[in-house]
């Protein structure tokens, strides 16, 4: 296996460039490093899977990439903007327009229908109601839930809920899809369905897909696999045929 440890890609054309990124949490006067001196380039359209045991910094890395948290040190450049130094408003704007999130627990708003949950992702973009409805309809069709638009999350199966979450992530046509254990709460068959769907969407839309998983079956579908261990990232290049 070709494993590099904290290397910077020589490629000029990158969507992400992380340099010297550390994230240290402080709890009761004690410092807990979650990510340590991480350097990483991610190309546009790349599928990167990040594996690792619980508590080794996978989710923290995803949050740093998604602008949900800021590093204690280093820079997280996305499309020329350093998310570590940008104002909260700038980061929020990047989140709203460029990132789609998929969570393990789906994180759908329980009182909103499938269509309304997907529509919620378009609210920060200031799109007209009619345009929102049209895009939501297409997004739900693309995940095979066109006929379940008016269903509440509680009326859908786990796999269907995750499809709604994927539709919500894709409806804004983001550049990057960030998925945190998207199959963690699903059975094997459903897991395969969801991964197949993500694969299709990744190919069709030329998305950059960064997926955190502890499931090796899922990780093997990615182009590159990173392994987080004690806050440090090791990358295994070009696993995908």
């Amino acid at each position, binding site marked *: 296996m070709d494993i590099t440890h904290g290397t910077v890609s020589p490629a000029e054309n990158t969507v992400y460039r992380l340099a010297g990124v550390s994230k240290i949490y402080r709890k009761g006067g004690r410092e807990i490093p979650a990510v340590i001196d991480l350097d990483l380039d991610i190309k546009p359209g790349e599928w990167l899977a990040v594996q690792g045991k619980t508590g080794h910094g996978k989710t923290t890395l995803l949050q740093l990439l998604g602008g949900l948290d800021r590093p204690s040190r280093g820079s997280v450049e996305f499309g020329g903007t350093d998310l570590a130094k940008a104002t909260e408003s700038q980061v929020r704007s990047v989140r709203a327009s460029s990132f789609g999130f998929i969570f393990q627990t789906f994180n759908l708003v329980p009182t909103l229908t499938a269509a309304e949950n997907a529509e*919620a992702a378009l609210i920060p973009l200031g799109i007209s109601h009619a345009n929102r409805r049209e895009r939501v309809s297409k997004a739900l069709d693309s995940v095979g839930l066109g006929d379940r638009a008016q269903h509440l999350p509680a009326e859908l199966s786990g796999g269907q809920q995750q499809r709604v979450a994927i539709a919500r992530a894709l409806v804004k046509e983001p550049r990057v899809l960030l998925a945190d254990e998207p199959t963690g709460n699903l059975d094997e068959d459903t897991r395969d369905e969801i991964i197949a769907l993500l694969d299709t969407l990744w190919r069709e839309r030329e998305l950059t897909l960064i997926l955190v998983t502890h499931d090796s079956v899922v990780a093997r579908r990615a182009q590159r696999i990173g392994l987080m261990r004690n806050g440090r990232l090791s990358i295994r290049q070009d696993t995908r045929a």
Partner: protein
Amino acid sequence: MFFLTYLRRELRRRMRQAIFIALGLAIGIGLVITVMGASAGVKAAQAKVLRALYGIGTDVTVTTKPKPLSSRPTSGRATGPGPGGNAGHATVCLNGKCYTSGTIDTLVSGDHGALSAATATKIAQLNHVSAAAAGLLLTDNRIVLPKTSSSQLQPPTSISVDGTDISHPRLGPLSNASLTKGRTFTSQDANANVAVVDASYATAHKLTLGEAVTIANKKFTVVGIVTQPQAGSPPQVYIPLQRAQALATDLATGKAMTKQINTVYVTAASAADIGAVQKEIQHLLPQATVTSSSDLASEITGSAASAAKLAGALGRWLAVLVLIAAFAVASLLTMAAVARRVPEFGTLKALGWRSGRIVSQVLGESVSTGIIGGALGVGLGFAGVAIIDKIAPKLSATVPSATGGGLQTQVAGPGGGAGPVSGVGPAASHTTIAVPMSASVTVTAIVLAVLLAIAGGLLAGSFGGWRAARLRPAAALTRVA
């Protein structure tokens, strides 16, 4: 659109909690409206009492204390059979003249001292005074002496009489009365023996228009019958001021009251000028008693005053406490709801929602709950006021009497030992009257309820919104994990 859909769905999801918060606010707001309604009712009842005493337009009344009695103007004694076997007779002496038979009918001023008739004119010329009317509050005392020694001396009868300033129909006790029959005074009546009679008195004495009522041994033709909104101490008979002056006697001096009055009714130029008017009159007449409506209100005692104090103090504080409790519960429950929705808000923040948008969503939900609570509160307030109207006992008010000079009589039968049988002096100067209380919901109360509901919602939503705004998306999403 999305805002409202989300708001409606969220309220529906937390319906029980929303109802609980709304009910808490409703009870507080309903209590505020009820207390305000009851308070307004009591105040209105008090105002009715005051208006009945001194008329609608009167802001200030001017009187003086009566001079001490110079002599005992009236005394009586009963003499028993003499050695010769003569039957005894009741004897009443008035102003040095003693009567053993016939009818004694005197019109006297007792409670208030005499003022010059020019006083009203002088007061009318003061800076902040809009109008001033003279008045002569009198009592007609009538004693019928027995014709034979075997008859008992009957207790005297008294009629309260108001010498009405015809030139100022909008001031004084008659201004508040409603004419039920006949007419009121005109300028041609200034020197005429005509009277306007209170309906209660007319009914009790079976008086109708055109009949006569006897005042100071003069017959006055009844030209009008009036009712006062508050049956209590208003005068029973109104006669023109000039006629009253011609017939009245000052009880203290025993002299006629020609060109004299004993009350001036004053209207200030504006409500804000009442204090200034009081000062100006006090400066003009240092010995005078200058009483404003609010002074008079403070003199009212009895259950009406107690109810006013109860509504004003206990009711107000009870309402405030309930409101504070309702606001606190609403705030705590909203904060608890926000705590439960941390993952939801974290997700929305991850989707790029502004903190302000999330705060406005929380505020919208709590203000909606507040408005529902306000609407329920208004309903409860109306119900509370209706219940008070139904079950509230009739209040009583003990008020300073407008007239005085009644007889305090102790009657001894013939054959009794010599000694005083009657005395004349100011009668008891307070009257207790029944006051019907009618509580009502005012527009102010409803506006206040709406404002309180919105304030309660905003307060609760602010706490919850503040908590939601401070959420870091990463921390919120970690909570999910």
